[in-house]
Protein backbone atom coordinates (compact mmCIF):
# COMPACT_ATOMS: atom_id res chain seq x y z
CA UNK A 1 0.00 0.00 0.00
CA UNK A 2 1.35 3.41 -0.83
CA UNK A 3 2.38 5.35 2.25
CA UNK A 4 -0.20 8.06 1.45
CA UNK A 5 -2.94 5.46 1.57
CA UNK A 6 -1.60 4.24 4.92
CA UNK A 7 -1.77 7.81 6.29
CA UNK A 8 -5.38 8.14 5.09
CA UNK A 9 -6.30 4.68 6.38
CA UNK A 10 -4.79 5.23 9.86
CA UNK A 11 -6.74 8.48 10.37
CA UNK A 12 -9.85 6.92 8.86
CA UNK A 13 -9.59 4.25 11.60
CA UNK A 14 -9.15 6.92 14.27
CA UNK A 15 -12.20 8.79 12.94
CA UNK A 16 -14.22 5.59 12.98
CA UNK A 17 -13.29 4.38 16.47
CA UNK A 18 -12.74 7.50 18.56
CA UNK A 19 -16.05 8.12 20.25
CA UNK A 20 -16.78 10.95 22.66
CA UNK A 21 -14.80 13.97 21.55
CA UNK A 22 -11.25 15.16 20.97
CA UNK A 23 -9.50 13.49 23.90
CA UNK A 24 -10.82 10.13 22.70
CA UNK A 25 -8.33 10.31 19.81
CA UNK A 26 -5.39 10.24 22.27
CA UNK A 27 -5.06 6.47 22.86
CA UNK A 28 -5.09 5.97 19.08
CA UNK A 29 -2.38 8.56 18.58
CA UNK A 30 -0.15 6.80 21.12
CA UNK A 31 -0.63 3.57 19.13
CA UNK A 32 0.28 5.48 15.98
CA UNK A 33 3.49 6.82 17.57
CA UNK A 34 4.47 3.22 18.42
CA UNK A 35 3.75 1.94 14.96
CA UNK A 36 5.21 4.60 12.67
CA UNK A 37 8.01 7.15 12.73
CA UNK A 38 5.65 10.05 11.90
CA UNK A 39 6.07 11.65 15.31
CA UNK A 40 7.36 10.66 18.76
CA UNK A 41 4.98 9.96 21.62
CA UNK A 42 6.45 12.93 23.52
CA UNK A 43 5.14 15.23 20.79
CA UNK A 44 1.54 14.27 21.62
CA UNK A 45 1.53 16.21 24.90
CA UNK A 46 3.03 19.22 23.13
CA UNK A 47 0.32 19.02 20.48
CA UNK A 48 -2.40 18.83 23.13
CA UNK A 49 -0.99 22.07 24.54
CA UNK A 50 -0.96 23.65 21.08
CA UNK A 51 -4.51 22.45 20.44
CA UNK A 52 -5.78 23.79 23.76
CA UNK A 53 -4.23 27.16 22.94
CA UNK A 54 -5.47 27.47 19.35
CA UNK A 55 -8.96 27.33 17.89
CA UNK A 56 -10.38 24.11 16.56
CA UNK A 57 -10.96 20.56 17.76
CA UNK A 58 -8.05 18.50 19.09
CA UNK A 59 -8.59 15.57 16.72
CA UNK A 60 -8.45 17.78 13.62
CA UNK A 61 -5.39 19.59 14.94
CA UNK A 62 -3.57 16.31 15.60
CA UNK A 63 -4.44 14.95 12.14
CA UNK A 64 -3.29 18.17 10.49
CA UNK A 65 -0.06 18.20 12.49
CA UNK A 66 0.77 14.53 11.89
CA UNK A 67 -0.08 14.84 8.20
CA UNK A 68 2.18 17.88 7.92
CA UNK A 69 5.09 15.99 9.50
CA UNK A 70 4.41 13.18 7.05
CA UNK A 71 4.12 15.16 3.85
CA UNK A 72 3.59 18.92 4.16
CA UNK A 73 0.35 20.64 3.19
CA UNK A 74 -0.99 17.71 1.15
CA UNK A 75 -0.28 15.36 4.06
CA UNK A 76 -2.31 17.62 6.37
CA UNK A 77 -5.27 17.52 4.02
CA UNK A 78 -5.09 13.74 3.47
CA UNK A 79 -4.98 12.99 7.22
CA UNK A 80 -7.78 15.44 8.07
CA UNK A 81 -10.07 14.16 5.32
CA UNK A 82 -9.35 10.62 6.51
CA UNK A 83 -10.31 11.60 10.06
CA UNK A 84 -13.65 13.25 9.26
CA UNK A 85 -14.71 10.95 6.41
CA UNK A 86 -16.26 8.13 8.53
CA UNK A 87 -18.19 10.51 10.77
CA UNK A 88 -19.60 12.48 7.81
CA UNK A 89 -20.96 9.25 6.31
CA UNK A 90 -22.31 8.04 9.66
CA UNK A 91 -23.98 11.37 10.51
CA UNK A 92 -25.64 11.56 7.08
CA UNK A 93 -27.03 8.05 7.64
CA UNK A 94 -28.20 8.91 11.18
CA UNK A 95 -29.82 12.15 9.94
CA UNK A 96 -32.21 10.06 7.87
CA UNK A 97 -33.64 8.27 10.87
CA UNK A 98 -32.74 10.54 13.78
CA UNK A 99 -35.70 9.78 16.05
CA UNK A 100 -35.32 6.02 15.83
CA UNK A 101 -31.59 6.16 16.55
CA UNK A 102 -31.94 8.32 19.62
CA UNK A 103 -34.54 6.18 21.35
CA UNK A 104 -33.20 2.78 20.27
CA UNK A 105 -32.59 0.72 23.41
CA UNK A 106 -29.77 -1.29 21.78
CA UNK A 107 -27.92 1.96 21.09
CA UNK A 108 -28.37 2.89 24.75
CA UNK A 109 -27.10 -0.55 25.83
CA UNK A 110 -23.94 -0.18 23.73
CA UNK A 111 -23.15 3.21 25.24
CA UNK A 112 -23.87 2.06 28.77
CA UNK A 113 -20.46 0.33 28.91
CA UNK A 114 -18.77 2.16 26.06
CA UNK A 115 -18.75 5.47 27.98
CA UNK A 116 -16.82 4.12 31.01
CA UNK A 117 -14.42 2.29 28.65
CA UNK A 118 -13.66 5.55 26.85
CA UNK A 119 -13.11 7.18 30.26
CA UNK A 120 -10.56 4.44 31.07
CA UNK A 121 -8.88 4.82 27.68
CA UNK A 122 -8.44 8.56 28.08
CA UNK A 123 -7.13 7.89 31.59
CA UNK A 124 -4.53 5.65 29.96
CA UNK A 125 -3.51 8.46 27.62
CA UNK A 126 -3.24 10.83 30.59
CA UNK A 127 -1.05 8.25 32.31
CA UNK A 128 1.29 8.22 29.29
CA UNK A 129 1.48 12.01 29.28
CA UNK A 130 2.34 12.05 33.00
CA UNK A 131 4.98 9.30 32.63
CA UNK A 132 6.70 11.47 30.06
CA UNK A 133 6.21 14.70 32.01
CA UNK A 134 7.26 13.47 35.48
CA UNK A 135 9.68 10.59 34.72
CA UNK A 136 10.86 11.41 31.17
CA UNK A 137 10.12 7.87 30.01
CA UNK A 138 7.57 6.68 27.46
CA UNK A 139 6.53 3.31 28.94
CA UNK A 140 6.08 1.90 32.43
CA UNK A 141 8.83 -0.70 31.91
CA UNK A 142 11.38 2.10 31.37
CA UNK A 143 11.14 2.93 35.07
CA UNK A 144 13.51 0.76 37.06
CA UNK A 145 13.12 0.52 40.81
CA UNK A 146 16.88 0.97 41.34
CA UNK A 147 17.14 4.48 39.97
CA UNK A 148 13.52 5.43 40.53
CA UNK A 149 14.52 8.46 42.60
CA UNK A 150 16.95 9.69 39.94
CA UNK A 151 14.34 9.44 37.21
CA UNK A 152 11.59 11.33 38.98
CA UNK A 153 11.60 15.08 38.27
CA UNK A 154 11.23 17.00 41.56
CA UNK A 155 10.43 20.35 39.89
CA UNK A 156 7.87 18.61 37.66
CA UNK A 157 6.18 16.94 40.64
CA UNK A 158 5.90 20.23 42.56
CA UNK A 159 4.35 21.87 39.48
CA UNK A 160 2.01 18.90 39.08
CA UNK A 161 0.60 19.20 42.61
CA UNK A 162 0.38 22.99 42.35
CA UNK A 163 -1.46 22.86 39.02
CA UNK A 164 -3.79 20.12 40.21
CA UNK A 165 -4.79 22.43 43.04
CA UNK A 166 -5.03 25.62 40.95
CA UNK A 167 -7.01 24.12 38.05
CA UNK A 168 -9.63 22.79 40.46
CA UNK A 169 -9.73 25.89 42.64
CA UNK A 170 -9.99 28.43 39.80
CA UNK A 171 -11.87 27.23 36.73
CA UNK A 172 -9.91 29.33 34.24
CA UNK A 173 -9.46 28.52 30.56
CA UNK A 174 -6.70 25.91 29.89
CA UNK A 175 -4.79 28.53 27.90
CA UNK A 176 -4.15 30.42 31.17
CA UNK A 177 -2.44 27.43 32.83
CA UNK A 178 -0.51 26.48 29.69
CA UNK A 179 0.88 30.02 29.37
CA UNK A 180 1.75 30.12 33.08
CA UNK A 181 3.54 26.77 32.76
CA UNK A 182 5.53 27.97 29.75
CA UNK A 183 6.79 30.93 31.79
CA UNK A 184 7.59 28.73 34.81
CA UNK A 185 9.35 26.22 32.54
CA UNK A 186 11.58 28.88 31.01
CA UNK A 187 12.43 30.57 34.35
CA UNK A 188 13.21 27.34 36.23
CA UNK A 189 14.75 25.53 33.22
CA UNK A 190 12.55 22.41 33.18
Amino acid at each position, binding site marked *: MSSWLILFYEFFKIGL*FSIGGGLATLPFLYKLADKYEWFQSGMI*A*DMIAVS*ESTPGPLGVNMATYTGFQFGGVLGSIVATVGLVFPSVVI*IILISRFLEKFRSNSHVEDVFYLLRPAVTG*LIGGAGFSVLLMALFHVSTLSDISMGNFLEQIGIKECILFVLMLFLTNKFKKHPVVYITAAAVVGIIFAF
Partner: protein
Amino acid sequence: MKELWQLFSVFCRIGAFTFGGGYAMLPLLQKEVAEKRDWATEDEILDYFAIGQCTPGIIFVNTATFVGYKRKGVWGAIFATAGSVFPSLIIIMIIAAVLNNFAQLPVVQHAFGAIRVVVGVLILNAVWGMWRKSVVNKICGVVAVAAFLLSAVLAVSPIWIVLGAGVLGLLSPMIKGGRAR
Protein backbone atom coordinates in the same frame (compact mmCIF):
# COMPACT_ATOMS: atom_id res chain seq x y z
CA MET B 1 -24.76 27.66 -4.31
CA LYS B 2 -25.08 30.75 -2.14
CA GLU B 3 -26.29 28.78 0.87
CA LEU B 4 -23.53 26.17 0.40
CA TRP B 5 -21.00 28.99 0.63
CA GLN B 6 -22.80 30.36 3.72
CA LEU B 7 -22.64 26.94 5.38
CA PHE B 8 -18.91 26.84 4.72
CA SER B 9 -18.25 30.38 5.98
CA VAL B 10 -20.43 30.20 9.12
CA PHE B 11 -18.84 26.97 10.34
CA CYS B 12 -15.44 28.31 9.36
CA ARG B 13 -16.07 31.33 11.60
CA ILE B 14 -17.25 29.23 14.54
CA GLY B 15 -14.22 26.95 14.13
CA ALA B 16 -11.87 29.93 14.11
CA PHE B 17 -13.19 31.47 17.32
CA THR B 18 -13.59 28.58 19.73
CA PHE B 19 -10.72 27.28 21.77
CA GLY B 20 -10.58 23.80 23.25
CA GLY B 21 -13.41 22.21 21.27
CA GLY B 22 -16.41 20.29 22.52
CA TYR B 23 -18.82 22.17 24.74
CA ALA B 24 -16.88 25.42 24.33
CA MET B 25 -18.53 25.66 20.89
CA LEU B 26 -22.09 25.35 22.15
CA PRO B 27 -22.89 29.03 22.91
CA LEU B 28 -21.41 30.25 19.63
CA LEU B 29 -23.22 27.53 17.66
CA GLN B 30 -26.54 28.48 19.23
CA LYS B 31 -26.00 32.15 18.40
CA GLU B 32 -24.83 31.68 14.80
CA VAL B 33 -26.99 28.74 13.77
CA ALA B 34 -30.18 29.09 15.83
CA GLU B 35 -30.58 32.79 16.72
CA LYS B 36 -29.10 34.54 13.69
CA ARG B 37 -29.99 32.12 10.91
CA ASP B 38 -32.77 29.77 11.93
CA TRP B 39 -30.90 26.81 10.40
CA ALA B 40 -31.76 24.67 13.43
CA THR B 41 -33.55 25.18 16.76
CA GLU B 42 -31.64 25.28 20.05
CA ASP B 43 -33.11 21.91 21.01
CA GLU B 44 -31.96 20.39 17.75
CA ILE B 45 -28.43 21.63 18.41
CA LEU B 46 -28.46 20.00 21.85
CA ASP B 47 -29.63 16.76 20.22
CA TYR B 48 -26.83 16.98 17.65
CA PHE B 49 -24.37 17.41 20.52
CA ALA B 50 -25.76 14.42 22.39
CA ILE B 51 -25.57 12.24 19.29
CA GLY B 52 -22.15 13.65 18.39
CA GLN B 53 -20.98 12.59 21.84
CA CYS B 54 -21.92 8.98 21.21
CA THR B 55 -21.04 8.56 17.54
CA PRO B 56 -17.54 8.37 16.11
CA GLY B 57 -15.76 11.57 15.26
CA ILE B 58 -15.47 15.08 16.59
CA ILE B 59 -18.58 16.65 18.09
CA PHE B 60 -18.23 20.05 16.43
CA VAL B 61 -17.54 18.47 13.04
CA ASN B 62 -20.50 16.13 13.49
CA THR B 63 -22.76 19.07 14.35
CA ALA B 64 -21.61 20.85 11.19
CA THR B 65 -22.41 17.72 9.16
CA PHE B 66 -25.90 17.52 10.74
CA VAL B 67 -26.80 21.16 10.05
CA GLY B 68 -25.32 21.08 6.54
CA TYR B 69 -27.23 17.92 5.66
CA LYS B 70 -30.46 19.31 7.06
CA ARG B 71 -30.15 22.47 4.95
CA LYS B 72 -28.72 21.22 1.66
CA GLY B 73 -28.37 17.43 1.65
CA VAL B 74 -25.05 15.69 1.04
CA TRP B 75 -23.38 18.72 -0.54
CA GLY B 76 -24.48 20.86 2.38
CA ALA B 77 -22.95 18.31 4.75
CA ILE B 78 -19.66 18.38 2.85
CA PHE B 79 -19.45 22.19 2.68
CA ALA B 80 -20.32 22.70 6.36
CA THR B 81 -17.84 20.00 7.43
CA ALA B 82 -15.08 21.46 5.25
CA GLY B 83 -15.75 24.88 6.80
CA SER B 84 -15.55 23.46 10.32
CA VAL B 85 -12.05 22.01 9.84
CA PHE B 86 -10.65 24.75 7.59
CA PRO B 87 -9.32 27.15 10.30
CA SER B 88 -7.58 24.32 12.19
CA LEU B 89 -5.93 23.13 8.99
CA ILE B 90 -4.45 26.54 8.24
CA ILE B 91 -3.43 27.41 11.81
CA ILE B 92 -1.85 24.04 12.61
CA MET B 93 0.03 23.89 9.32
CA ILE B 94 1.64 27.21 10.19
CA ILE B 95 2.41 26.09 13.76
CA ALA B 96 3.82 22.76 12.54
CA ALA B 97 6.13 24.56 10.13
CA VAL B 98 7.28 26.96 12.87
CA LEU B 99 7.57 24.32 15.61
CA ASN B 100 9.80 22.15 13.42
CA ASN B 101 12.25 25.03 13.16
CA PHE B 102 12.17 26.04 16.81
CA ALA B 103 11.60 22.76 18.67
CA GLN B 104 15.32 22.26 19.34
CA LEU B 105 15.85 25.65 21.04
CA PRO B 106 16.50 25.19 24.81
CA VAL B 107 13.96 27.88 25.71
CA VAL B 108 11.22 26.05 23.77
CA GLN B 109 12.18 22.73 25.34
CA HIS B 110 12.06 24.21 28.86
CA ALA B 111 8.64 25.71 28.15
CA PHE B 112 7.23 22.45 26.83
CA GLY B 113 8.80 20.49 29.71
CA ALA B 114 6.52 22.36 32.11
CA ILE B 115 3.58 22.52 29.67
CA ARG B 116 3.50 18.70 29.51
CA VAL B 117 2.91 18.59 33.28
CA VAL B 118 -0.07 20.93 32.90
CA VAL B 119 -1.44 18.91 29.98
CA GLY B 120 -1.30 15.82 32.22
CA VAL B 121 -3.25 17.71 34.90
CA LEU B 122 -5.86 18.91 32.36
CA ILE B 123 -6.40 15.34 31.13
CA LEU B 124 -6.71 14.07 34.72
CA ASN B 125 -9.38 16.70 35.41
CA ALA B 126 -11.25 15.75 32.22
CA VAL B 127 -11.10 12.06 33.14
CA TRP B 128 -12.45 12.82 36.61
CA GLY B 129 -15.37 14.73 35.10
CA MET B 130 -16.10 11.88 32.67
CA TRP B 131 -15.82 9.31 35.48
CA ARG B 132 -18.50 11.08 37.50
CA LYS B 133 -20.86 11.11 34.51
CA SER B 134 -20.19 7.70 32.96
CA VAL B 135 -19.47 5.44 35.93
CA VAL B 136 -22.93 5.05 37.41
CA ASN B 137 -22.39 1.70 39.15
CA LYS B 138 -19.77 -0.96 40.00
CA ILE B 139 -19.91 -2.69 36.61
CA CYS B 140 -19.12 0.58 34.85
CA GLY B 141 -16.26 1.13 37.31
CA VAL B 142 -14.81 -2.31 36.52
CA VAL B 143 -15.06 -1.63 32.76
CA ALA B 144 -13.37 1.77 33.12
CA VAL B 145 -10.50 0.37 35.21
CA ALA B 146 -10.12 -2.62 32.86
CA ALA B 147 -9.98 -0.31 29.82
CA PHE B 148 -7.33 1.78 31.59
CA LEU B 149 -5.16 -1.23 32.51
CA LEU B 150 -5.52 -2.90 29.10
CA SER B 151 -4.43 0.24 27.27
CA ALA B 152 -1.85 1.68 29.69
CA VAL B 153 -0.16 -1.50 30.94
CA LEU B 154 -0.81 -4.18 28.32
CA ALA B 155 -0.83 -1.80 25.29
CA VAL B 156 -3.97 -3.40 23.81
CA SER B 157 -5.23 -1.50 20.77
CA PRO B 158 -8.01 0.97 21.70
CA ILE B 159 -10.02 -0.37 18.76
CA TRP B 160 -10.44 -3.74 20.53
CA ILE B 161 -11.30 -2.05 23.81
CA VAL B 162 -13.98 0.13 22.16
CA LEU B 163 -15.45 -2.83 20.28
CA GLY B 164 -15.30 -5.10 23.35
CA ALA B 165 -17.04 -2.57 25.61
CA GLY B 166 -19.72 -1.94 22.97
CA VAL B 167 -20.47 -5.66 22.61
CA LEU B 168 -20.51 -6.15 26.40
CA GLY B 169 -22.93 -3.22 26.67
CA LEU B 170 -25.17 -4.70 23.99
CA LEU B 171 -25.26 -8.00 25.90
CA SER B 172 -25.64 -6.34 29.30
CA PRO B 173 -29.47 -6.63 29.54
CA MET B 174 -29.09 -10.43 29.38
CA ILE B 175 -26.60 -10.49 32.24
CA LYS B 176 -27.81 -10.42 35.81
CA GLY B 177 -27.19 -6.99 37.28
CA GLY B 178 -27.02 -5.42 33.82
CA ARG B 179 -28.37 -2.07 32.80
CA ALA B 180 -31.79 -1.37 34.25
CA ARG B 181 -34.36 -0.76 31.55
